[in-house]
């Protein structure tokens, strides 16, 4: 046994020294089972390898270690320390030859941490891993989903938020990476099937994170991306995202937010499975808080099962607010007890509390007169004449311009893509070809 591992070390050393990383990356996957079998002496192997020089060799040892974690039951601190060191010191050029195993290592590492309940310690490691492997700031990697999962588990979003805030323009997938490297390894086909999974998970988890910090607009966008991903069959990730999408869109817009027509999966598979949620939407549209309360109570078991009970409560609160907002459109002044009875709040004091909170958060503009118990609804006092507003407009314009530039750039890339040109020209040729006989056969005089 020992000699086989010695062979492994020798192979890594010779090929790394010769700089034939491609060859090494092609051969190493075969040794993986060997490494997993010998989990007890992997630490000795690590001692003989240098993270910087033999990045690929170390990567596979790590992979072996994580694969055997169930049987070996290693000290979590040691694994975390190893990973931390690895993402800091590994050689990116060598890693490029083994992107897929690197992703796999990160996935396994994530599972390991989640199992051991130490998610918070992996956040920095994975964030560093993303920095290292992604080719540009706007690229989405499968590791993003892992980072989201760890952040959610650890309930710590400080590091993940900057990633979620960048707009994605490119996606790194296992399938594409394998194609790039002309690798035909059977073990990666399984992983390639997971590309969609990690993409969906990223948007699902991202939506959950934004919901947790009450940035509902952004959450809605993330859920929308998740449910409108072109698909032939429904993923359960999409179904859960759809349920949350319905609730968040009630909070944001008060109705089901617009869903692009191309998402047929929704109508066919998801709607029948999300009955409770559609009932909720229908009741919400009647704007009766009392009925809404009853229906939430009625379905509370289902909501709790889906872990959506908290969100359901937010929906209920949002209806009170929406109803108060609606009052501002009809009335100039109204007594607090009238407000309470119209939006079905228990008392005038409660209504005053709601109104005060809404004034504070800028959702309505009003002033309360405690002397005679009246509320005065006012218009938005924004005059659009302050420097702050100017700055606001300015940043928005810059954002839009940047977006236009980005779209133009991407369009240019597509137009210059040989595949696209071939296809576009090909279909034109076909059109011409099919038109010719038609004109002739359609001419009776001929």
């Amino acid at each position: 046994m020992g000699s086989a591992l010695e062979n492994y070390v020798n192979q890594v050393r010779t090929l790394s020294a010769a700089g034939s990383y491609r060859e090494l990356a092609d051969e190493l996957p075969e040794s993986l089972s060997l490494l997993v079998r010998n989990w007890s002496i992997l630490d000795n192997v690590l001692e003989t390898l240098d993270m910087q020089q033999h990045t690929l060799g170390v990567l596979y040892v790590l992979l072996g270690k994580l694969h055997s974690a169930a049987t070996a039951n290693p000290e979590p601190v040691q694994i975390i320390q190893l990973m931390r060191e690895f993402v800091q010191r590994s050689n990116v050029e060598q890693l490029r030859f083994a992107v897929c195993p690197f992703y796999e290592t990160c996935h396994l590492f994530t599972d390991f941490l989640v199992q051991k309940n130490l998610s918070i310690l992996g956040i920095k490691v994975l964030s560093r891993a993303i920095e290292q492997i992604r080719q540009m700031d706007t690229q989405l990697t499968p590791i993003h989903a892992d980072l989201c999962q760890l952040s959610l588990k650890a309930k710590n979003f400080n590091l993940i938020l900057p990633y979620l805030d960048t707009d994605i323009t490119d996606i790194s997938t296992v399938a594409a990476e394998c194609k790039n490297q002309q690798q035909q390894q059977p073990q990666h086909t399984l992983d390639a099937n997971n590309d969609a999974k990690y993409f969906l998970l990223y948007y699902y988890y991202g939506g959950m994170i934004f919901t947790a910090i009450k940035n509902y607009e952004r959450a809605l966008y993330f859920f929308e991306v998740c449910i409108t991903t072109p698909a032939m069959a429904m993923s359960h990730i999409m179904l859960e995202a759809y349920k949350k999408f319905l609730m968040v869109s009630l909070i944001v817009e008060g109705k089901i937010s617009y869903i692009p027509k191309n998402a047929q999966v929704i109508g066919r598979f998801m709607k029948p499975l999300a009955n409770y949620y559609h009932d909720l939407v229908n009741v919400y549209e009647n704007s009766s808080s009392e009925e809404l309360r009853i229906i939430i109570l009625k379905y509370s078991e289902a909501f709790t099962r889906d872990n959506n009970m908290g969100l359901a409560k937010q929906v209920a609160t949002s209806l009170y607010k929406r109803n108060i907002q609606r009052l501002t459109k009809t009335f100039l002044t109204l007594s607090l007890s009238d407000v309470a009875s119209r939006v079905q709040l228990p008392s005038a004091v409660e209504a005053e509390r709601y109104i005060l909170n809404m004034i504070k958060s800028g959702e309505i503009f009003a002033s309360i007169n405690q002397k005679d118990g009246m509320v005065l609804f006012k218009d938005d006092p924004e005059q659009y004449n302050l420097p702050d507003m100017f700055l606001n407009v300015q940043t928005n314009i810059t954002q839009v311009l940047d977006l236009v530039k980005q779209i133009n750039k991407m369009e240019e890339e597509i137009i210059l893509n040989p595949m696209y040109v071939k296809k576009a020209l090909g279909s034109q040729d076909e059109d011409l070809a099919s038109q010719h006989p038609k004109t002739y056969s359609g001419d009776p005089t001929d």
Partner: protein
Amino acid sequence: MQQDKYSDTLSKLENEELENISPGAEIYQQLMAIYLYQNKLANAKLLWMRISNNLKEQNKELAQLNLLNLALQHNSYADFFKHIKYDWSETNKLIIDDLLVKQREELLNLTATAYVSIYEENLMEMAQLTSDELKNACLDWTREQDGDKQILLPKVKEITPRIASDDQLLKLTEFVSFLEN
């Protein structure tokens, strides 16, 4: 990102939290206090959720901070000002004092915009101030007698418009010259 005097400390603390297996109560306390000061209530809530249970039970100060957090989340000013009267430890005292000043100012500003008239006793209850303290805090508000109760007519503070910075002027000039061409 809003910048203030605690931003640096905050990022340092956040980093420390991510690297320790079980960060001490000190870190959590300071983090919590700063989140509250910066009005990042979602962060404060999540922070509380990730603190281990026995730390929550053992550390009184942490629990007290969470009471403040809950009060702010429920927009309950009375509770907030009640719970903030506590014997804070040295490290947190400065932050908490700032928080108190900030929240009191916010409350008075909010009252000024949201109320045409408010009974003095209600405001005293919300701000947990005595009648005299309240008088000092809002000197220019008009007072009226309504039966045996004092009623306050708040005065909206004039917003002093920010003077446009050089940067903005530059952008405006660019814009004008673009329009002219």
